[in-house]
């Protein structure tokens, strides 16, 4: 079966401030099947956003990319400008963290939405109008006509993000790229927006790549989760298998470090040190500097992803971790699931 979006051994380097290149993504391979929602989870600097930018060909100037990204079998890095524009306009929708930065502040919501539909070129004006008001209602916007005549600054963040969702769906894409779509929103608004994305995605059978720093949030709307750390995917799992015995120590650490409602601990489990950037990673495992279970081998040799029940984990000592699953150093996050 060929995937709708297939990222194969992606490596991205950006020009550094002074001289030379800095690696921001080491080796990312990830498939998204048609109709499937995949979460890409990581802390700041893990490369999760850079991965989506590579997919959308939105990398900064001077970036060097190797590996392959295919959409429906077509190479995205290989597209010419026309094909790229056409692909972006019709087959993929994108939702960003900060809707305000991605909408022209001096044009009305209506203008913004119409522009997106007309770019597609397949619809008449009345059909476009019909589709837009249908989508506006679908994302929970009640008085469509009034909203269409308003300007972005007149709308709250949550409402504007709904408009962005509607905009992403106007051309009936097959893939939705959502880059931290709710991070800037209040929690109650986040729930609304996430529920809307999830519902519309399921109804339309859309595939989605969902970028977030919140494992629980990703698990709620995605079937599969890939966890990124310092430019590599350290683990890819079914959402409900996250944090189980075979999980990567980083995933377990993340789950344990997050305070959780209904579970007060005297002290939170922490992951020592700070998240490192991709370019700081040496020859060994990216997580070696912070891993509670680190061995000499981890510092010298980059672990390849190993098949485990439910997914892949890039760790040399996956069997060992399996055996030690009950131990307090790694156990807490897994224990509650």
């Amino acid at each position, binding site marked *: 079966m060929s995937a709708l979006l297939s990222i194969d051994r992606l490596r991205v380097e950006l020009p550094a*401030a*002074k001289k030379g290149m800095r690696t921001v993504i080491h080796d990312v391979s990830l498939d998204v099947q048609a109709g499937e929602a995949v979460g890409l989870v990581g802390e700041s600097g893990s490369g999760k956003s850079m991965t989506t930018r590579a997919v959308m060909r939105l990398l900064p100037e001077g970036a060097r990319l190797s590996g392959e990204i295919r959409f429906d079998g077509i190479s995205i890095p290989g597209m010419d400008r026309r094909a790229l524009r056409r692909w972006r306009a019709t087959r993929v929708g994108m939702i960003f*963290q*900060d809707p305000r930065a991605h909408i022209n502040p001096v044009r009305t919501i209506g203008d913004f939405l119409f522009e997106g539909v007309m770019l597609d070129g397949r619809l008449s004006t009345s059909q476009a109008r019909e589709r837009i008001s249908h989508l506006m209602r679908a994302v929970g916007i009640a008085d469509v006509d009034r909203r269409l005549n308003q300007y972005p600054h007149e709308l709250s*963040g949550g409402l504007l993000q709904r408009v962005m969702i509607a905009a992403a769906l106007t051309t009936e894409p097959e893939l939705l790229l959502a880059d*931290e779509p709710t*991070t*800037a*929103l*209040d*929690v109650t608004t986040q729930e609304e927006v996430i529920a809307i994305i999830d519902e519309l995605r399921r109804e339309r059978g859309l595939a989605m790549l969902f970028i977030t720093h919140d494992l629980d949030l990703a698990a709620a709307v995605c079937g599969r989760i890939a966890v990124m750390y310092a430019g590599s995917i350290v683990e890819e799992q079914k959402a409900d298998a996250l944090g189980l015995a075979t999980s990567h120590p980083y995933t377990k650490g993340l789950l344990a470090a997050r305070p959780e409602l209904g579970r007060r601990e005297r002290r939170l489990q922490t992951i020592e040190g700070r998240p490192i950037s991709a370019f700081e990673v040496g020859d060994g495992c990216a997580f070696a500097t912070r891993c509670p279970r680190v061995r000499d081998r981890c510092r010298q040799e980059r672990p390849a992803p190993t098949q485990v029940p439910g997914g892949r984990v890039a760790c040399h000592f996956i069997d060992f971790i399996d055996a030690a699953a009950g131990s307090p150093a790694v156990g807490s996050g897994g224990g509650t699931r």
Partner: protein
Amino acid sequence: MSVLQVAPKPDSREITSWGARFDGPTTVACVIVVVFTLAAVFAPVIAPYDPTQVDPSAVYQGPSVAHLLGTDNTGRDILSRLLHGARSSLLGPAIVVLIAAVVGTVIAVSAAWIGGRFDAFVSRALDVIFAFPGLILAIVAVAVIGPGLLAPAAALSISYIPYIARVLRTAAIRQRNLPYIAALEVQGFGAVAICVRHLVPNLLPLLIVQATVSYGYALLDLSAISFLGLGTQPPTPEWGLMVANGQSSIIAGHVEQSLYAGLTILVAVVAFNVLGQGLAKAFMGDDR
């Protein structure tokens, strides 16, 4: 007032820090500025002749080993006059920029700090000064006080205050609203202490950029004033004065004096402009 404001990445375009990394043109501009400054300082040592020494036997001489740039209509060595001219030509704009920078910074920071009506008043006042041509102001000053270096420079500095203050005020308001300033206020530090020790030092790179660019324009303005005969008075050498002086010789086919003096002004103004822009680029690339 969003609950979860995601930490804004420090704006890399904000000019707040040191650590200059110059590109090619900026380096060249920097070298020119340094050379001109050294020439001004050491003019008496390096100038081959007395710049005011008239030599009727050597008028309008072309470039030679004895007179590298030739002589003028009274036989004075042009190179020596340029070197000595650097002193008043470069001192004038320095006075302008110094006054404008000090007054402009005080105005900008107080407006940003106090805010409200005071800020609105200051902004309007700056707009009014901005609309007033500096040259006219300088000419009025000369009419009242008399020609010389100081009177036009002081008058001109008033018209340069808005160039500094307007830019600095915007940056100061930004800084004023950053939490580190609020944290200092909560500690109990007084406004003056916070401004002098924290706010102004953080504006310094921007101030230097503004001052450098303004310096170039002030040099041009003061040269124009001297050209009109309202600035530095002969026989003291000055570039603008030299251009004016050489005018009559042009008809006789001797362009050297005006040409070299004009070129010197041109090079100096361009160098200060390029340097200012280069500094801006260097400062903004270095904010993490």
